[in-house]
């Protein structure tokens, strides 16, 4: 590994100044769980590494209220902090599940939510989960702050709308409102330390009649070059009664609209099929069907055939069926590239 300069600014503005001055020769590093792998292997040869670890105040998880509301996530918040947050598990279960299912505990202890987003892997778990909640990114640039919806941030694998010198400061997640149910399912070949073959998140917010869908989100990981939302599928649900049939129909639309492809981790047809399977399963496991008075399917909600993967482990989330916790053997088998959120060139 060639030598490089290690710069450790103590303010966000200082980091932006360092990056602006150095241009393409410098790389910003947060938790380093992905970038250090690339630097150690020689795949990346920066002249300077700008470490963001010395900047105070970027690692906090700030709920709007003790009993709910929105959430502000500092870009340097490690996934493990979200995983351990009972508040997040209660109010944004899919987000807690997404963060808890990423990498290993060692990786989650240092790998940051901001890093996972800015790395822009198609399989970014925290980003795919955050898409459900209409999160907004607050970006610091040389000229000050700007905001950008997360849904507009990704351009392609490893590519974002961050401009030279810009850094993600925080993620703002608005209050999803009452009667909200969410679930994130990471579909993997094994249940720990694995990049998603594909992932599905759902968020359903019901009207006070607990029957009509007020808003809905379906987010998909590794079903396109970037994390995406299946907007046409979401639209079929809004304003209508929540039914199993409606969700299955929406799942079909999401599968049809997806841009899945073949890769060594999974085939396109299989990924498409699993969208159809996992969207209803995620709605079931979110608790939305139960809240709307819809009876569970025969044989339990979790496993209507096919391989069940509860990658998120779901310590706090509302789960229904899907195998016992002990069944979710977390131990890994063969290793797969990318220490944490994953490498961008892998799947798309």
């Amino acid at each position, binding site marked *: 590994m060639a*030598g490089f300069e290690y710069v450790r600014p103590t303010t966000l503005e200082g980091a932006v100044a360092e990056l602006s001055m150095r241009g393409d020769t410098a790389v910003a590093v947060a938790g380093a769980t992905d970038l250090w*792998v690339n630097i*150690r292997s020689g795949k990346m040869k920066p002249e300077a590494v700008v470490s963001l670890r010395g900047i105070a105040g970027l690692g906090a998880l700030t709920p709007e209220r003790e009993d709910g509301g929105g959430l502000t996530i500092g870009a340097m918040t490690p996934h*493990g902090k979200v995983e351990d947050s009972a508040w997040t598990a209660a109010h944004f279960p899919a987000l807690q599940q997404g963060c808890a299912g990423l990498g290993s*505990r*060692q*990786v989650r202890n240092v790998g940051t939510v901001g890093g996972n987003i800015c790395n822009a892997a198609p399989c970014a778990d925290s980003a795919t989960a955050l898409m459900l909640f209409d999160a907004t990114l607050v970006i610091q640039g040389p000229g000050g702050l700007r905001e950008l919806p997360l849904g507009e941030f990704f351009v392609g694998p490893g590519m974002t709308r961050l401009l030279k010198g810009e850094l993600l400061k925080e993620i703002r997640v608005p209050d999803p409102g009452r009667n909200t149910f969410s679930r994130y399912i990471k579909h993997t070949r094994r249940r720990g330390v694995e990049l998603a073959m594909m992932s599905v998140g759902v968020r359903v917010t019901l009207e006070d009649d607990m029957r009509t869908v007020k808003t809905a989100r379906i987010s998909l990981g590794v079903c396109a070059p970037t994390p995406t939302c299946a907007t046409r599928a979401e639209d079929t649900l809004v304003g209508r009664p929540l039914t199993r049939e409606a969700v299955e129909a929406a799942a079909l639309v999401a599968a049809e609209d997806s841009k899945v492809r073949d890769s060594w981790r999974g085939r396109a047809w299989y990924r498409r099929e699993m969208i159809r399977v996992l969207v209803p399963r995620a709605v079931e496991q979110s608790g939305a069907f139960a809240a709307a008075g819809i009876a569970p399917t025969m044989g339990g909600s979790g496993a209507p055939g096919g391989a069940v993967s509860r990658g998120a482990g779901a310590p706090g989330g509302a789960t229904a069926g899907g195998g016992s*916790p002990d069944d979710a053997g977390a*131990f890994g088998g063969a290793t797969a590239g990318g220490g944490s959120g994953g490498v961008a060139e892998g799947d798309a």
Partner: protein
Amino acid sequence: MTGMDKKNIHFVANGDPVSALVGPEWTLLRALRDGVGLTGTKEGCGAGECGACTVLVDGTAVNSCLFPALEAEGRSVTTVEGLTQADGTLHPLQRAFIDYGAVQCGFCTPGALMSSKALLDQNPDPNAHQIKVALAGNLCRCTGYTQIVEAVQAAAAEMSGTATAAAGNGSGAAATGAATGTAGATTGAPTSGTSLAGVTGAVDQPGHGATGAGTHASLSGEVTA
């Protein structure tokens, strides 16, 4: 380009203030092994996959192979050497790993122990699922993991003073006694060569400990190869 020059970092390793001259590309793993001389921590994959290099930084488990050495400045680092008491008394986790056969070649053991330590510090009474989640990032190619989970459960029981006849299978017979602090706890069982070397971090190659290199000298975490 002064930033490329080596720099002296100061941190606390296992309670002792230490310093190391490190380059910007150095990892904490290298600083510990080559800078401080604490070779109990192993490099497996070097890419954050296997967890052999797991240490605690301010109490949290991290892969030291991906932790920039310069970020260790002012931090408190605990390695496998820090588990053993000064008089050589093994930590209950180390003892349980030996008694339950959770050590075979021993190379992954220092990392598995540190992940287990981090878990028990946060959750003194984990169930099997929680142990699996906490240790998912520690690959072991020998044991099949069952023994590791049993060892962590036994150590948790001993540390919380609720040790009972925990082990359920045949291999746990001796370990059950050990978990309650009686038979076999001090003499170290037939596999002690490998096991002692493993739990103290003295194995430096997979399988090396099986040659019997692990001796009481290894209790201090000294390198044997």
